[in-house]
Structures are given as structure tokens and as C-alpha cells.
């Protein structure tokens, strides 16, 4: 305990003397004028606030960079640094960084809910849209999809790594509104009857549709049909399964729930020898004639399906129909090769940029420059591990942002070392110069980094997708770089001093 007590007391002394120093300065230099120049701080002494906060922060690390408490302090410091490196490497192994759509390839779709006469765009209907889309994507078997609402009426769907975006697009965006409609073949002499006439004759809901028969994608026959009344919808289904009819053509086997089965039995009973039209999204897909009543609640949907069509229709029927139709307003498809290319290229750019920075810092600032390179080397795994721990998705702009922060991370060191140069020129000892440099550079580093973070945070709230990735990496990068510059660099520099490696202020190892 005694070991820790001494530096702590010194820290308290420092605070007291710092505030004293400030107050004498103010007395000498018209103290009131200074306060007046702060529009938001009338009456407060802001100059006192900062050194206090600063000292408070340094308390947390007093054990590490105040007076050496024992001969073992450097070993402790080395242990701490190794601990930070080990922890970040461990986190990186445990939670590998997710690659964004633009890097691993994938599809991003933005849908906008469309208002219908019956259903308005609301939180409820949009929540329904999200739920149905989620079910459909689950049926598609995409790993780690994201489905989220944006604004009042939009849904963003992100499907990393899917190979067949067209299929996903067709599957997700369809309303998949299934209807079973009581119908009747239109007699030949009634062709060209007006909608009013049809309604008069067949009931208020009646309308005319067409049953198209297709072969190899070409329409071979068209037959008009009177659609009288919708009796069952997709909501009455219990299940849907892929199957085959007696000729081996792919079909969808469906099973109604109890209520649906009852209704279906009634309808088939009164429709013997008449057709029942099966309509998907307002298109008649088939209209089989009923031969006998079906009480089992089971039916088959056939209609020139290919095996893939059946598979996707089953997914849609199981997931249910969208409560409101949606329109695709944005599609972004990134193939896998582009992302790989981008990663490779940004790796090259990053390594070269890093080497430039290393060369510059070591040549210009010598030994302290080398120390800042070491803390930059810790900065890299530390930042990446924090990004990983927050489950950040790494995007291409995100990588660019991270590489930029490498350049910005040494800025704090540059500010400190330039200050160090001035302090050394004043004739202070190496140790005192180090302490003063960190002390004095703090305000400039804090203020300049906060302004960069303001820009990045704005970007986060306004931007979407990949740009958010950039904003997050930039923000975390700046915060971590402040930590490495203000504590790790300082810690390592103090190690040099305590190990008596640099003692002469005129040493060639220092830049003056």
C-alpha cells in the first residue's frame, strides 16, 4: 500500500499546485477579462476546470507514469503492454470481424411499403412486412441476413454472400397473395360483356380474368374465366409442401387449417363440374374443374411449374403474404470478386502508408518517433479488436476510415513531440520535458479530436450502410488513438527515462 500512497499524494499535490498556478496567472492577467471572453461560462473559471479534469484522468494511470515506485516498474509496464496486445489478439480470434456486403459480396435491397385501399402504411403493417420477409429469407437459408426498418415506410434487407440474387429478389418482393376463387367458364356468347353486365349477372364481386396456358415460356392458349367470389386466402393455409402430380409434374401440395378445410369442403361441394381459380398476386395460375367435393382440406396447386418455382412458392406460402405490397426502391448487388479485389488493394495501400508513416516518424522524431511507431503497432490490433467486440461490420469505406486513422493516430504524437522540442529548448531535463509536453499538448489533442468525432458522429446518424461503417471505424479509431498517444506512448517514454536510456537533453536520440 505504501508503494501506491506516495505517487497518489504527489498527484494530489499536482492538482493543488496546478490550480494555484492557474489562479496566480489569472490574478496577474486581468482575471475577469478571461472569463468574459467565454460566452457560455460567465462566472465560471474554465481554466481551472481543465487542469482538474486532466489530473483526474491521470490518476487512473498514476501508478504507471508518475514517480517510479520500485525497480520493477518497467517490468510492470511491459506486462501491461503485453497484456493489452494479448487481450486484443484474443478478442480478434474469438470474434472475427464481419465483412460487409461490399467486401464479401452480397445483396442489399430496400423496399418501400405501398399503401392500398384497404391497408395503410403503418407501424403494424410494416412490422408485418418485416416478419414475412424474415420468414421468407429463413426459407432461403441465407446465413446472417439483416432485415431492418428504415424511416416510416422502408425495409432494408441485407443478404451477405448469396449466389443467386435474382431468385432472392423475386422471392422477397412478391406480395404472395394467394386466393381461391369460385369461378365459372365464360360462355362463348358472353365475350366482350361489360364489367357492369358481368357484375349484374354473376354477383357484385365478379370480374373477368384469363387462364393462360404456357409451354416453354410461350402462351399457347388463353381462356376467359369469370371470377365470382374469393372464398379462401393464403391465411387459411396450415402448410405447403413441394410434390408431384400423377404425371410427375412439380406441384405444390397444400393443407388448409380447420376453418379453411370446412370452407373448402363447402365450396367444392357447390362447385362440382365448375372451376375454382387459384390466383397468386392477381394472376390466375390455374383453374382446375372440381370433380367431386373435397372434405379432407388438402389440395394441389398445379400450373406449369418448374421445380424451382415450386420450391419458392412453398417458401412464400409458408411465410404468408405481405400485408401491403412493397416496391423495390434500391438494389445493390456486389459480386464476390470485387470485394476480394478491394481487400487486397487496400491491404497494399495500408501497408505502404504505414511504412511511410513509420519512416517519417523515425527519421524526423528519432527515438520518440520510434516509440510512437510502437504504440501505432499496438493501436492496430487494439482498434480492430474493439471494432470486433462491438460486432462492427467492416466495409470498404470502413477500411479506408481505419487506414486514415493510422495517419491521424500519429498526429497526437506529432503534437506532443513538437511540444517536447520546445520544452527541451527551454533547458528542462528530459523527464520534466516529457511531463510538460504531455501536459500542455492535452488540450490541443482533446479539442482537435472532439471536432473530428463531431463530423464522424453526424455521418453515423445521417448515413446508411457502408457509410455508417466508415463513421464507426473513424470514431473508434480516434478514441483509441487518443488512448494510445496519451497513455501508451507516455508509458513507454517514461520507461526509457526510468531505465536511464535517455538522460541527456542534448542526446542525439531526441529531436530538438
Amino acid at each position: 500500500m505504501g508503494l501506491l500512497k506516495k505517487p497518489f499524494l504527489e498527484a494530489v499535490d499536482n492538482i493543488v499546485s496546478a490550480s494555484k498556478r492557474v489562479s496566480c496567472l489569472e490574478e496577474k492577467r486581468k482575471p475577469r477579462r478571461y472569463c468574459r471572453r467565454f460566452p457560455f461560462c460567465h462566472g465560471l473559471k474554465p481554466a481551472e476546470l481543465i487542469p482538474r479534469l486532466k489530473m483526474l484522468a491521470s490518476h487512473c494511470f498514476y501508478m504507471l507514469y508518475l514517480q517510479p515506485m520500485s525497480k520493477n516498474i518497467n517490468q510492470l509496464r511491459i506486462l501491461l503492454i503485453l497484456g493489452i496486445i494479448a487481450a486484443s489478439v484474443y478478442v480478434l480470434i474469438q470474434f472475427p470481424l464481419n465483412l460487409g456486403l461490399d467486401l464479401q459480396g452480397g445483396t442489399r435491397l430496400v423496399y418501400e411499403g405501398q399503401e392500398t385501399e384497404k391497408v395503410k402504411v403503418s407501424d403494424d403493417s410494416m412490422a408485418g412486412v418485416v416478419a414475412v420477409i424474415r420468414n421468407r429469407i429463413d426459407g432461403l437459408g441465407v446465413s446472417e441476413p439483416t432485415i431492418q426498418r428504415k424511416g416510416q415506410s422502408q425495409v432494408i434487407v441485407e443478404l451477405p454472400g448469396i449466389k443467386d440474387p435474382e431468385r432472392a429478389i423475386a422471392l422477397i418482393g412478391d406480395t404472395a397473395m394467394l386466393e381461391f376463387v369460385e369461378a365459372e367458364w365464360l360462355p362463348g356468347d358472353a365475350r366482350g360483356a361489360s364489367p357492369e353486365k358481368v357484375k349484374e349477372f354473376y354477383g357484385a364481386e365478379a370480374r373477368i380474368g384469363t387462364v393462360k396456358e404456357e409451354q416453354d415460356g410461350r402462351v399457347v392458349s388463353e381462356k376467359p374465366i369469370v371470377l365470382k367470389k374469393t372464398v379462401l386466402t393464403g391465411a387459411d393455409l396450415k402448410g405447403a409442401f413441394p410434390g408431384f402430380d400423377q404425371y410427375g409434374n412439380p406441384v405444390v401440395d397444400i393443407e388448409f387449417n380447420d376453418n379453411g378445410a370446412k370452407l373448402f369442403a363447402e365450396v367444392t361441394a357447390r362447385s362440382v363440374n365448375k372451376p375454382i381459380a387459384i390466383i397468386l398476386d392477381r394472376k390466375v395460375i390455374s383453374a382446375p374443374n372440381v370433380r367431386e367435393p373435397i372434405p379432407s382440406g388438402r389440395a394441389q396447386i398445379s400450373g406449369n411449374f418448374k421445380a424451382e418455382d415450386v420450391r419458392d412458392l412453398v417458401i412464400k406460402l409458408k411465410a404468408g403474404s405481405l400485408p401491403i405490397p412493397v416496391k423495390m426502391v434500391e438494389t445493390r448487388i456486389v459480386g464476390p470478386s470485387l470485394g476480394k479485389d478491394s481487400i487486397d488493394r487496400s491491404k497494399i495501400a495500408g501497408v505502404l502508408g504505414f511504412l511511410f508513416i513509420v519512416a517519417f516518424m523515425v527519421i524526423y522524431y528519432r527515438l520518440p518517433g520510434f516509440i510512437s511507431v510502437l504504440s501505432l503497432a499496438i493501436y492496430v490490433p487494439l482498434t480492430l479488436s474493439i471494432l470486433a467486440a462491438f460486432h462492427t461490420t467492416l466495409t470498404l469505406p470502413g477500411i479506408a476510415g481505419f487506414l486514415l486513422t493510422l495517419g491521424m493516430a500519429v498526429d497526437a504524437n506529432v503534437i506532443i513531440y513538437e511540444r517536447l522540442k520546445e520544452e527541451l529548448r527551454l533547458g528542462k531535463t528530459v523527464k520534466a520535458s516529457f511531463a510538460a509536453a504531455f501536459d500542455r499538448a492535452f488540450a490541443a489533442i482533446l479539442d482537435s479530436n472532439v471536432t473530428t468525432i463531431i463530423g464522424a458522429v453526424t455521418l453515423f446518424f445521417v448515413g446508411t450502410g457502408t457509410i455508417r461503417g466508415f463513421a464507426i471505424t473513424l470514431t473508434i479509431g480516434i478514441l483509441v488513438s487518443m488512448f494510445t498517444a496519451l497513455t501508451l506512448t507516455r508509458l513507454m517514454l517514461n520507461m526509457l527515462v526510468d531505465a536511464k536510456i535517455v538522460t541527456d537533453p542534448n542526446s542525439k536520440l531526441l529531436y530538438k
Partner: protein
Amino acid sequence: MFDIIKKSRMFLTVSAIVTALALAVLLFNFMVHGKPMNFGIDFTGGTMLNLRFAKAVSVGEVRQVLDGYGLGESTIQKSGDQDILIRTKPLDNDVRTRLLADFNTKISQTEILEADVIGPTIGKELGQQAIWALLLASLGIIIYVSFRFEVKYALAALLALYHDAIITTGIIALLWRQIDITFVAALLTIMGYSINDTIVIFDRIRENLKKTSLAKKKFNEIVNLSIWETMSRSINTVMTVLFMVLCLLIFGGEPLREFSLTLLIGFTLGAYSSVFVAPTLLALWHHNESKK
């Protein structure tokens, strides 16, 4: 020691002229092209297809296929021997699928590197969001700098930032580079980062104003002294970042090119304005205030 503040009118005039020229470029583009900048599909809505063909391909072949869809007017660009970049109006999923199938049969096997379709409403939203972002960031910076320094420091810094942002925009507009959402990100990054050097100088002014040994100096002299005292750090901090931006520009590949170019221009301007615009504006303002 060269007196920057004494020549402040010269620096400010040059900056004002260049800013005006940048705005003139936007106006000129508007008259000639009908829009101030070459807005990409992120802003206007549309389709962007980045395709890789199995064999070397020519723009003519691609245009021929597009003609069949009435899309002969699309922008078609070669981005590599086998790579083609097509920009056109928003296409339906069906049309796009058929188009790709046509490329497969008529030219050669096609791989989608990137395919974006953006509806016009989304683009409009983005434009509004971009303006909001710039305003919000400005507001944040004003509040923070006013709190830590003074309102006039904040305004001087912000004017310098707008100077950087407007000239950067003007240069990109002059080069007629296609801009997308990353341009907005780049502008905000420039604003956030370029103010750093300004803050370092302001911090030094704040510190020097408190020094008893400098109590007799005039405000202008203190500003000038502060600029020179911090000169090497202003240069070195920007240098390290510019190293990185240059590497990204040269080696970072096509998708990051516009982004790094914008940053390169903006950061360079930021370094200039931090030294020659923001402090001189501050000194000028102080001078005018004390005359009253």
C-alpha cells in the same frame, strides 16, 4: 519571421477569389450540363452495372446489346480489358435479368461485379440527408469550439472549413468526376479533420494570451507568433495523413479513387486554410472589433 497577419488581406483575397471561382464552376456546370456536379446514381436514381466479361470486350458491342432495349444512350465505360461500367436509368429486375442473359449469349459469359439500382426517391432523400449532415456537423463544431474557445474562434474556423469544402467541391465539379454518397462522407471527414490544425493554432493563441511574458504584445502579434510556433506540427500532422490518402489513391483501387481524391484535395486545402485563413480571419475580426 514572415508576418502572416500583416499580409492577411492578401491571403483572404486569394481565398475569396478561389472560393468564388469554385462557385462559378458550379454555376458554369449548371448552365452547360444542366446540373452543378456530375451526380451519380446515388443522388439521381438509376442503374449502375459493373460487369466482367470472360473475354476482352468493346464499348461498341455492349452498346449494340443495350440498343435492343432502347438504352443506347446509356453511359458505357471501360474500367479494364474485360470490365465494363454501365450507367443508365432505373431498370426493373426483369429487364436487368434479361439484359444479363443477352450479354451472356451475345458477347461472352458475364460476371456481376456490382449492380446497383436506385429509385429516384431514394436519391432525393440522400441529397437532403447530405445537406442536413453538413449543417449538423457545422452546428456541432460551432457549439464545441465556442464552448472551448469563443464564438469568433468558432466562426473563423467554420468559415475556413466552408472555404475548404466549397473549393474541394468546385475542383471535383471542374474535373466532372462522378460523385456518390462517399463524396458526402469525404466532405464531412474533411470538415472534421481539417479543423484539427486550426484548433492546434487556436490552442496556442489561447495559451499565449495567458502568458505574462507576452502580455504586452498585440493580439495580431500573438496570433502570428502562435502560427509560427505551431508551423512544423501543422505541416507534419497533415503529412502523415496525406501519406495514407496518397497510398489509398494510388493503390486503393477503383472503388476508393473518388473518395481518396476528394480527401487529398480537401486535406491539402485544410492545411492551407488552417494556417492562412482561420487565424487571419480571427485577427481581422479582433482588429475590427477593437476599432469600434
